[in-house]
């Protein structure tokens, strides 16, 4: 999962099993740049726009067989883009995500990138524009954007707990935040309130390793963060368990409450459950979550 191509292949596999995701377009006026027949380019809509040759990455169900049967080339029928929405992703690249408690489980970072990219692919199939929060990769459409996203996702950050990027949010867009949210919660609060100010709604996917939920430690232990910046020594790790779990529960509660206030959706996912379930949840959250 370290290279961009491998990440994209995995994401395509995950995305192939879901129907194209049509994000709800709230506040049509704000997000849609042009109305019906205005865009003069392919995208979501009811009207035919063009047949284009199928490219690698197009799923079989996109092939228009009526057109393709006339010749040897497979064609994809594209419709004119009528409504589009921008979805911005923030996937935590911090060192704390590069952790797994068991060789059989993926790292949290791997799972987060996979889910983020799979959601992005689904959105692109649905004609939406996807990008990153901040200024690094503004939302665009098309397969090239998926490649760019994949590339951006594979860059690791060095600091332990990276704060959510909340600059340059496009008003009335959608956002997807994937992280373990172990860092300072005030950063999250800042990002969410800022997003709420701009009318950005989205999904907060809380990704945790099973050992972070269970805290199966005993004895004299020195706990270190993955990056090594934080450490905590205890003589009796088992005694800490209850209090740690309390803190984790309160963190979850805090995030959940924050989401409720700002109109976001909060989801919890563990790396030992399947990526499919998380993607399904993400799909439904983006699809229906923001109906008012």
């Amino acid at each position, binding site marked *: 999962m370290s290279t961009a191509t491998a990440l994209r292949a995995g994401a395509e596999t995950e995305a192939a099993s879901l129907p194209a995701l049509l994000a709800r377009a709230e506040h049509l006026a704000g997000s849609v740049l042009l109305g019906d027949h205005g865009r003069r380019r392919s995208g979501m809509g009811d009207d035919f726009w063009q047949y284009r040759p199928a490219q690698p990455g197009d799923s079989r169900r996109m092939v228009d067989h009526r057109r393709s049967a006339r010749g040897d080339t497979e064609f994809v029928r594209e419709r004119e883009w009528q409504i589009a929405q921008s979805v911005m992703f923030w996937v935590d690249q911090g060192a*704390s*995500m590069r*952790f797994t408690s068991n060789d059989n489980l993926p790292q*949290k970072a791997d799972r987060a990138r996979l889910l983020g990219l799979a959601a992005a692919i689904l959105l692109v199939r649905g004609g939406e524009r996807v990008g990153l929060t901040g200024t690094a990769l503004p939302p665009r459409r098309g397969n090239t954007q998926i490649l760019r996203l994949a590339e951006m996702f594979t860059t690791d950050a060095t600091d*332990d*707990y990276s704060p959510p990027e909340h600059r340059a949010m496009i008003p009335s867009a959608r956002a997807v935040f994937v992280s*373990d949210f*172990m*860092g300072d919660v005030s950063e999250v609060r800042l990002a969410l309130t800022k997003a709420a100010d701009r009318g950005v709604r989205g999904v907060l996917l809380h990704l945790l*390793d099973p*050992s*972070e939920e269970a*805290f199966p*430690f*005993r*004895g*004299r*232990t*020195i*706990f*270190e*963060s*993955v990056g090594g910046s*934080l*450490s*905590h*020594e*205890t*003589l*009796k790790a*088992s*005694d*800490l368990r209850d*209090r*740690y779990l309390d*803190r*984790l529960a309160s*963190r979850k509660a805090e995030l959940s409450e924050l989401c409720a206030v700002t109109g976001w959706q909060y989801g919890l996912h563990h790396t030992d459950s399947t990526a499919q379930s998380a993607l399904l949840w993400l799909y439904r959250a983006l699809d229906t979550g923001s109906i008012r």
Partner: protein
Amino acid sequence: MTVLGGIGFTAPWLLMALFALPILWLILRAVPPAPIRRRFPGVALLLGLKDDETVSDRTPWWLLLLRMLAVAAIIIGLAGPVLNPEADAAQGDGPLLIVLDGSWGGATRWSEQAEAVEAQLTRASRAGRTVAFLDMARPEPPVFQAADAWRSRLPGFRPAAWQPDAARAAMAVSFADALGGFDTMWFSDGLDFPGREDVLSAFRNAGAVEIYQTAANVLALTPAGFEDGAVQLTALRAAGGPEREITIQAQGRDPAGNASILASAGAVFAAGETEASTALSLPAELRARITRFDIQGQRSAGATTLADDALRRREVALIAGRESREGLQLLSPLHYIEQALAPNADLIRGAISDVLPANPDVIVLADVATLSPAETEGLGAWIDEGGMLVRFAGPRVAASDISRIDEDPMMPVRLRTGGRTVGGAMSWGQPKTLAPFRESSPFFGLRIPDDVQITSQVMAQPDPTLAERVIAELTDGTPLVTRKTREQGQIVLFHITATADWSTLPLSGLFVQMLERLAVSSSASAPDAAQLDGTTWTPEQVMDGFGTLSDAGNLPGVPGPDLINAPAGPDMQPGIYADGDRRLARNVIGAETTLTPAAWPADIPIRGFAVPPEQPVAGWLLSLSVLLLLADVVASLALSGRLLGRVNTAAAVVLALLLMPTGPGSAQTADADAEADAFALNATAELALAWVRTGDARVDELSQAGLTGLSQTLYFRTSVEPAEPVGVDLEMDELAFFPILYWPVTPDQPRPSAEAYAKLNAYLRSGGLILFDTRDADISRFGGSSPNGRKLQDLAAALDIPPLEPLPTDHVLTRTFYLLQDFPGRHTSREVWVEAAPPDAEQIEGMPFRNLNDGVTPVVIGGNDWAAAWAITQNGAPMVPVGRGFTGERQRELAYRFGVNLIMHVLTGNYKSDQVHVPALLDRLGQ
């Protein structure tokens, strides 16, 4: 050495270190275990959390206990603990005399005794005592040496096959008197012997005496006798006791020449009795092979009795010149000799040519003058191989010209014409009597009764060799019995008749004794000393105390009477003795022997051998501590959580290493066995047709499909209901399960190995049938040089195939189920070859076919590619086109019919060849 609670310690002060254990306990409890470093993103949530207690996780009490135990084991192990330390009893520091009875009585428990002696030597060596040994069976002046020096010589002491006697006891007394003060340990066999008390008192004068004696009873076996047609065996025991059952074994060589137990019999000592008898009834052949009897579980010369001629009954063939069955019995030339031999020899009657194949030990010719050349030749060969020919003279011999001019090869001497008669009414002299036997005679020592008189005899011609051939003569010096050796055998001539006509010798006991001396017969009872007077016996094999026979080497011979009377000793060792052809066993136990248990004064301590040896346990304790420390390592890792995750791989590696040498191999063989079993079960649960795997995928597929098609056809049309066809690998699979093998020939299939050919030939001989199909009848004729044909010749060269012929029109294959004359497959060649009919088979007039009632042809060879014609797919459609249109379908149908006929032929044999079916067949053939 300090003894604490039954355990001795070589360094007891080290035990003081045990007091340090509680301190160690406290220290170990105080020191916390080393921390583990863990990566954990959730540490951000932990920041600021304080430990409730300042004390770390304590090492659990059981882990501490484990460590304490390990340390304690080390301390105690280093203190040198010794189990069963020898209690220093009333033994002084002075010289020690170890006395061994050294007789056969202790042989069974010799190793225990040796261990006990060694334990005493060890002890003496520790005490620094000097030790001397005195073997009562072979007394020699004792020499005091360091105990360690004796230990290496201990294995050199072996039990003797005799017991100490008075003379040896006296020697021991003199040695004891000469030595002065010493302590004595007497390892007794438990048997009394003359002079034992004297020896004991001599030892007691010199110092303390301890007796070591096993509680086990001494068992012995008296010589076997032969009575009432059974071998009589008597076992003895030294002391009466509870009822006890023993098993007496007859050892000998089986017909293959291997030593084995030929028979065994149980005997029971009644409670309090010291004798147990049993009888063993055995066929003469078996009895003659017995070399010894012994008591199961006993390993001593006393419990072994050797078998000799007494058990061996010789086979004697009696042949008279004139067999008058109607005649009076008392006048039969063989009557007296029969009477003399019948009690202890097996007699054979018949013509010479008939008895020679029985290979008797002795052939007696009574008044037989001339022998046919064939008889002479046969007898000569038999004598050369060790036979003994005993001839008696008589009127016919006297009247014949045998051995007159030249010495007859079947006669020891030349004879003068006529005989002589003395003491008759018309004669000039008195009847003659026997002269005393000369020393060189085998009869030397026999007492000659006064009433033996010779009235007539045949006379020996004086010859240079005569003197040495005479073994008995009359008082006037005329030879009466002459003997000559010939190769390994000998020829003996009694110059008188075997009846009482010419002499009274056959009426006397001397006659029987003479026959015994000549080993014509063997005595049923043990000979007494008088009978052995004047003989010298050389030992062939002698027995040691364990009852094991070994070569006698160059031991001197012993006089006959001594063999019976003299007690066993170094000069009269028990074993097998031989005098000429006679063999006599000298056993340790005589018929009159009784066993007397040794009785010791009450004030002398008697101990058993079973002294538990000292056992240093330091090594065990140190090993235990290492094990405990290892357990501690595992437990510590497990406690600190570091074992998880790693222990799995580590355990897997360890397990793999442990299992490596045996695991895969045994698993493979088990797999192979299970596979073979499954194959056999599969093949035998139902009838299955089989085909030979050629390695060519297409051919194999067609074979399988073809036989499937044939199986289905059989299923639908006949009562043969085969299961799925089976492809067999000639190298691996067992063929015996299949009635028929379909063997398609491809040019490049491998030649089966020699083992596979052996299997195939066995298959063919046991009624299997192989259908060879060269599959090339469209391009080649049988025997042509097509690649497949050449391959077939190559394949079949090593097979056991009878002469072949093209399938004749009256072959049973043409009518086993369908009436057929063509045997097409995918091709329609008519050339199908089967085993040729016997040349004498002829067609009877009016019969449609020859009478060929024998067997199933082992091979059918053709090239019609039958499997292709039979082959069907999964859904029943033919796989390969055959012919064109309807004729093609007809051809396929005929191919199926041939297949049905073939399977019917295999399964029912020549049933349809039976003439019983002729009327029905004639009817159907329309004739």
